[in-house]
């Protein structure tokens, strides 16, 4: 294990730090600063701590680790920053430095390693999830990460988003692609012109099977042939956020190689994601894979070819069946969607097209507290943010709370009885798929009357006095 990060990475982080000119817009939108108003739990405070840590060298102080660990990496600060400080580079670099320094107690290191391994390995996650379901519910009341894991495993969304039998596709899965060594499989019409890959996500493939199934149904309905990538293939995002750059970047590289092969052989023309956290990291693969120059062209190709389902679906012909007409959707902008991918308009446009009654929610800039493994490692802050988000999202008693990210849905569902659903589940439902769990009894509502046309003509001549 190296004790430092590479010189060029450290220089890049230093250059990013130097861009901060202390305007201070970021503090007011930083979730942890909003909660506790602690300067060292604000972006500026963390930037100062990272700067001091890199300048001092050696093992970082415990207080530095504490405050940097409390960052959600939501990037609300980056969106707000008027000086365009690339905060993501700073926090990722600082975390990489902390991990490489070996400053954490061994128990913490071991837990973090086990957590990363379990979450990014679908087989292990399935087993862990099965065991968690056997645990008494009272374990959710335990303090710290163990209690948090227990609470998450019993979150209503975990049950609501589980894959269900018989709805994976309108047609049985087609045969595997000839010559593929990945286990990738395809579905859709045999004569489809468009063929895309679906990134199903390491965690989502286990805990959000229904999300992937909804995406498959939707794409198939639009005549798109879908190649599912190797089940649970990880993009590396989770480990990269934890500062485990080496193992995270290795997973990123593996994914780039696989996708590049499918793209270059023409087996797919694009990658579609329903995991916005993954896509927001894929959009930075050039930087993540900077130490693998041989992959730079492939990484760039993958970046350009990867689209969130909300972007991809806008191009499709998907008429509404009327089943979801008038359903009131409180839409939560996942941080990876709004700050990472800058996608806020597209999901709303789709909801409008498909006759949903879409509502925005207050404090849209604040994270729900899910943030990868944050709700396991920082359960207290996470729970306060989760409750705040759920309260805001529940205003007006919507039929469903939607988001483009599994983590947000699981987190929000812990604090509200209102059903939650991924954006793609709602798109699927409105165009012929099953209703998301919790919405089975929904009755379509009449749509508002179109706006009346107002006939009036402008006068032929204008003058200063004419405006009376």
């Amino acid at each position: 294990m190296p004790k430092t990060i590479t010189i060029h990475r450290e220089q890049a982080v230093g250059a990013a730090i130097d861009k901060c000119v202390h305007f201070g817009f970021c503090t007011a939108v930083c979730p942890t600063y909003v909660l506790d108003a602690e300067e060292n739990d604000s972006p500026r405070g963390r930037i100062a701590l990272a700067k001091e840590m890199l300048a001092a060298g050696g093992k970082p102080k415990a207080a530095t680790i504490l405050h940097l660990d409390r960052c959600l990496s939501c990037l609300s600060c980056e969106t707000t920053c008027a000086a365009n400080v690339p905060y993501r580079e700073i926090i990722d670099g600082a975390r990489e430095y902390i991990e490489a320094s070996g400053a954490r107690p061994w128990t913490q290191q071991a837990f973090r390693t086990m957590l990363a391994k379990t979450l990014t390995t679908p087989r292990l996650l399935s087993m862990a999830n099965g065991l968690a379901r056997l645990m008494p519910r009272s374990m959710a009341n335990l303090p710290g990460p163990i209690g948090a894991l227990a609470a998450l495993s019993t979150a209503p969304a975990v049950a609501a988003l589980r894959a269900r039998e018989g709805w994976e596709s309108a047609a049985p899965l087609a045969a595997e692609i000839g010559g593929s060594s990945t286990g990738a499989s395809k579905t859709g019409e045999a004569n489809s012109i468009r063929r895309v890959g679906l990134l199903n996500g390491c965690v989502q493939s286990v805990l959000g099977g229904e999300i992937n199934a909804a995406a498959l149904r939707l794409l198939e309905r639009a005549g798109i042939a879908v190649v599912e990538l190797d089940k649970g293939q990880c993009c590396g995002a989770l480990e990269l956020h934890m500062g485990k750059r080496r193992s995270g970047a290795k997973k990123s590289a593996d994914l780039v190689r696989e996708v590049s092969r499918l793209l270059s052989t023409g087996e797919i023309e694009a990658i579609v994601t329903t995991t916005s956290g993954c896509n927001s990291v894929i959009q930075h693969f050039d930087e993540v894979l900077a130490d693998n120059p041989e992959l730079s062209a492939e990484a760039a190709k993958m970046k350009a070819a990867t689209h969130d389902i909300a972007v991809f679906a806008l191009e499709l012909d998907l008429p509404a069946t009327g089943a979801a007409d008038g359903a009131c959707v409180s839409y939560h902008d996942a941080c990876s969607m709004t700050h990472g991918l800058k996608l806020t308009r597209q999901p709303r446009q789709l909801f409008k097209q498909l006759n949903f009654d879409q509502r925005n929610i207050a404090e849209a800039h604040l994270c729900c507290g899910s943030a990868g493994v944050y709700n396991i490692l920082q359960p207290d802050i996470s729970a306060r943010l989760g409750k705040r988000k759920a309260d805001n999202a529940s205003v007006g008693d919507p039929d469903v709370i939607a988001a483009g990210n599994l983590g947000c849905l699981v987190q929000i569902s812990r604090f509200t009885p209102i059903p939650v659903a991924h954006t793609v589940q709602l798109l699927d439902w409105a165009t012929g798929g099953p209703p998301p769990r919790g919405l089975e009894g929904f009755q379509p509502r009449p749509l508002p009357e179109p706006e009346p046309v107002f006939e009036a003509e402008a006068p032929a001549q204008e003058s200063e006095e004419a405006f009376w």
Partner: protein
Amino acid sequence: MSVHESIEAFARAVADELGPEAVSLSHEVIDRYGEHTLPAPDTKPGAVVYPDSTQAVQTLVRLANRFKVPLFPISNGQNIGLGTRSPVRAGQVVVDLGRRMNKILEVNEKLGYCVIEPGVSFQALYDELRNRDSKLMMSPTAGPVQGSVLANALDKGGGCGAYADHFGMSCGLEIVLGNGEIIRTGDGALAGDQHPNWHVSKYSFGPFLDGLFSQSNFGIVTRMGVWLMPKPPHIEPFFFTFEEDDSLGEVIDLIRPLKQSNFVPTLIRANNELYLLSSGETNPEYAASAGKRTLSDEGRRALRKKHGIGAWTVSGAFYGASQAALAPNIERLRRHFTASGTGRWIPLDEAEQIGPLHIAISSNTGVPTNNELKMLSWRPGGGIIWLSTGLPMLGDMAAQFQREARRICESNGLEYMLSNVCGPRFARGIHSLIYNREDADEARRADACYRQLADFYASHGVFVGRAPTLYQGFHHDQRMSELNDACRAIKQALDPNGVIAPGKYGIA
């Protein structure tokens, strides 16, 4: 007792009376509250205190009088380019009202107003109205969405839409005076606890005192009524653009009748291209001259071409029943602005494709946005000063002012960026002086530019409005001494020990 000892004793007393969470002497906190964007060193406070109620503010003022410690109240501290969170003088104790006094106390749907504490931000008020499914809309600024609605009004900040005069739309204040007494203005002053007219009637028995507490230091405002407009069924933003720098005179003359007749209900902005485009661009020639020269005319033309706008762009909005109902108004406006052949209409669907115009679309439809402040990265180094002058709505004068102000900016190697916020008779001229604060020479030129511009305008009888803390003493000294004496006398009467922000707007 030394100043330092006084502040420490004050802090101990605050912790005793209001709890330890109500005060901070931490270096990190003090350093960050001292930061600003003006061409001078940071101005560090002596401490930072966080009251949670009007009574807590009263306690702070009483303790400040006892320990002879000067206070500097802020709301959300988003006054970027005007001082941020830093006090007007180093060592003053910042009273951060926004952290704990951030409640929306009332939203009155029938009468169309809200009552707020200092920490209520534009975003928070917007969210609250949306959450309530309110029939009311707010007037946002183009400034930070986390900025304080109350403080913006008190500092005579402007907004967008028909209720853009934020101080004019405030009604009824609660104030802790410098002597520690609490007063309610307007009908709120009636003895008793029933005040149905407090936030609906601006004028009541006796003198109108509210104005005394705008841009001043006579008291700390802890509550304000703010009028809100019923949300129209449809809002139709409009845009026109004019190719030449010298078109400003024509633009101002064309806007005047639209506002005097109230044909256009919103304020109309006439922004030059760099004011608009800097929100989406960085200075492409900065590196070549190391920031010593202003962007060339060729560079400006290239940016205009890239974004499809001219030297001056006009924006505003109509309110009505539907888009179709407003189509004749848009048509009348199109004829009006394009009659001479120099102006061009930018249809809304085209404007929606021009990133920098999204700011006006959001603001005029009542949605707060931070995007205008992306202009701060036009040059590196984080320096910005706002100079707020103004002019009568007369084209000749506007044309003359823009030529000379442009020359002054260029002679200091800075870009001329101006937004004219136009009403029926007066246009507030907001100059954005963006510079590299980390470059001593550039900071010196920015300071010189500000002073030269202010002197130029003053020589033509034009004063400033809202001013950065660094220049408040300078502007105070531009004013007739008799008025300054009157302000001093009021200060003496309401704050005899001078504990509230001595030096703010020059009043001590």
